[in-house]
């Protein structure tokens, strides 16, 4: 495998409301930030992650290219997935060996619609979507199957919000948790907040990584695994695909100082923690995680970027960034980064 590292990471100051900025306007500052950090103006490969349904505009990712400067033509790709999978595609692209740098970005505005019912559109159109099964409802089925005690869930939310308040990029959410159930057993406080935001990462291979960054975060393992889509075919109390992805990324994650987990509901954190077999002393989501800022389609990429940041600033040597997609943690990506 060719050695590839994350050499730069930037994210927007996420907002819990629509500021009226268009998607290219949201992306432009973070792209410029990673260009400035690396000194690169052009990249061997560019890949983005977003979802047209968030803005309700077909090919909205094409207009987002306005933020990149795509002339003369660039080598570019897009995934209709979280930007974490754009990072995976870029990592694979760098394995080809003919290019040494890649720009990856993800963006999303959930403030424009109703994410709870919008997420029904990702479900299979024969058996699930016609029931109107919404995002909170399918998450509540998983929460019911997992049976995580309420005190544990509340502690996760409080810790995430407290960390988020210390993170200038995350939202300021109160310490008090409203007890009203949305769909029992899921309460309003267990949900990730509506968030608009974007993030960008630069990957560099071989010698270029050391030239661009004082402490590159080397990708020592990266893999993603998926489970059947239909909820009734799975054991919702566990995440078999997260466990498989961790094994495929690295044969046993071993000691991990920091893990950034893409848990959009409080009960997903213990499910993931168990699947990844993270040691008790691993610090989970010091950024506040998705429960403090959830710019959908950038949230997973931010997990990898936040983990990389701990290597960049010298506070950690071995970290994990995790991303998830699909209903009830259907699809999981695990990235192991080392100094």
């Amino acid at each position, binding site marked *: 495998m060719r050695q590839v590292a994350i050499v730069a990471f930037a994210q927007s100051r996420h907002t819990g409301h629509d500021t009226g900025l268009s998607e290219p306007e949201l992306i432009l500052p973070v792209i410029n930030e990673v260009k400035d950090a690396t000194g690169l103006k052009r990249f061997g490969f560019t890949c983005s992650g977003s979802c047209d349904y968030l803005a309700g505009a077909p090919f909205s990712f094409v207009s987002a290219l306005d933020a990149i400067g795509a002339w003369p033509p660039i080598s570019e790709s897009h995934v209709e997935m979280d930007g974490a999978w754009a990072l995976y595609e870029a990592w694979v692209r760098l394995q080809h060996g003919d290019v040494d740098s890649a720009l990856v970005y993800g963006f999303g505005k959930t403030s424009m619609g109703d994410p709870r*019912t919008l997420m029904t559109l990702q479900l299979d159109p024969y058996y699930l979507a016609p*029931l109107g099964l919404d995002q909170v409802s399918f998450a509540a089925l998983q929460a019911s199957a997992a049976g995580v005690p309420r005190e544990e869930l509340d502690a996760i939310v409080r810790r995430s919000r407290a960390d988020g308040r210390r993170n200038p990029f995350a939202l300021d959410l109160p310490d008090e948790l409203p007890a009203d159930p949305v769909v029992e057993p899921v309460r309003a406080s267990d949900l990730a907040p509506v968030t608009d935001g974007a993030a960008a990462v630069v990957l560099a291979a071989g010698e270029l990584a050391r030239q661009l960054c004082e402490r590159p975060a080397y990708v020592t393992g990266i893999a993603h695994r998926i489970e059947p889509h239909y909820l009734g*075919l799975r054991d919702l109390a566990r995440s078999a695909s997260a466990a498989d992805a961790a094994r495929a990324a690295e044969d046993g994650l071993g000691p991990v100082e920091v893990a950034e987990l893409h848990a959009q509901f409080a009960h997903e954190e213990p499910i993931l923690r168990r699947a990844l077999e993270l040691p008790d002393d691993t610090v989970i989501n010091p950024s506040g995680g998705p429960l403090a800022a959830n710019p959908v389609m950038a949230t997973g990429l931010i997990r990898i970027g936040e983990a990389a940041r701990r290597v960049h600033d010298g506070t950690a040597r071995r970290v994990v960034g995790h991303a998830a997609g699909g209903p009830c943690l259907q699809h999981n990506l695990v990235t192991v980064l080392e100094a």
Partner: protein
Amino acid sequence: MPSDEPLTAEHVLEFPGGYTRTTGPVIGRFLTELRAGRLVGVRTAEGRVLVPPLEYDPATGEPVTGEYVEVGPAGTVTASAWVAEPLATHPLDRPFAWALIKLDGADTALVHAVDAGNPKAVAAGTRVWPVWRGERSGHITDISCFAPEVSKIVSPVRSSYRLKAGGALGVFLEGIGRGVFVGGRCGGCGKVYVPYRLSCPECGILLAERTELPGTGTVTTFAINNLPDPRAPEVPFVSAYILLDGADVPMIALVGGVPAHEVRHGMRVRAEWVPENERTPSMASVRWFAPTGEPDVEL
């Protein structure tokens, strides 16, 4: 006009008339059976029954066999989530549960709504049955929802009778029509009974004399009733044993003019009559007994 607020506009993304999709043979078979009122699963090469059927075995990626197996119609809930406030897009417009339901004979669970009435009526282990839509079209919503097994029914009971008050009751009610309580005294034991009766239940002899009692008395015991009754003004109401002054046995009457939780043993009460021109030989002429305000009596 300049403003700090950005301009806003409404935007709808829609496929008018809906998006037409082909089902393929496997999902098509399931939906066709559903239209006929049957639930089927498909058998995998390893012998597992997938419900609803898929074209492949998710465990191996191999195509499923062509063998369809009738399952259910009943099943067992494996997980559930309670929706207290349904969305417009949900299958039911009243509170309901989402559930994973393992239909009898299936190895996987079906996701559907359960019309359970209240969250305590559905949990892992609850047995549920499909409730079919009247008009079926080959759609997952041909099952309008599932419902728990029948464990109780409601039986209406209502019979009419015509009562005639001859004898002692007629004497008592005639007194009520005049605004007095008529009792009777036993010549053997001396006890005074109200309402008036013909004989003494202790001595077994005819009562010697009629007597008229005052409308005041003492509550000896009472019950707070939370079920509506046509004879009571409102719910909750209090029915009480009232020992009229001068009587030896209490009579049953309503207590009113006081909050139900303030009624107590030993409370002094007085009959409150309807206006004289509205009085009839019926207990309806006594509106209720209301507190007199006197100190309670030691019983």
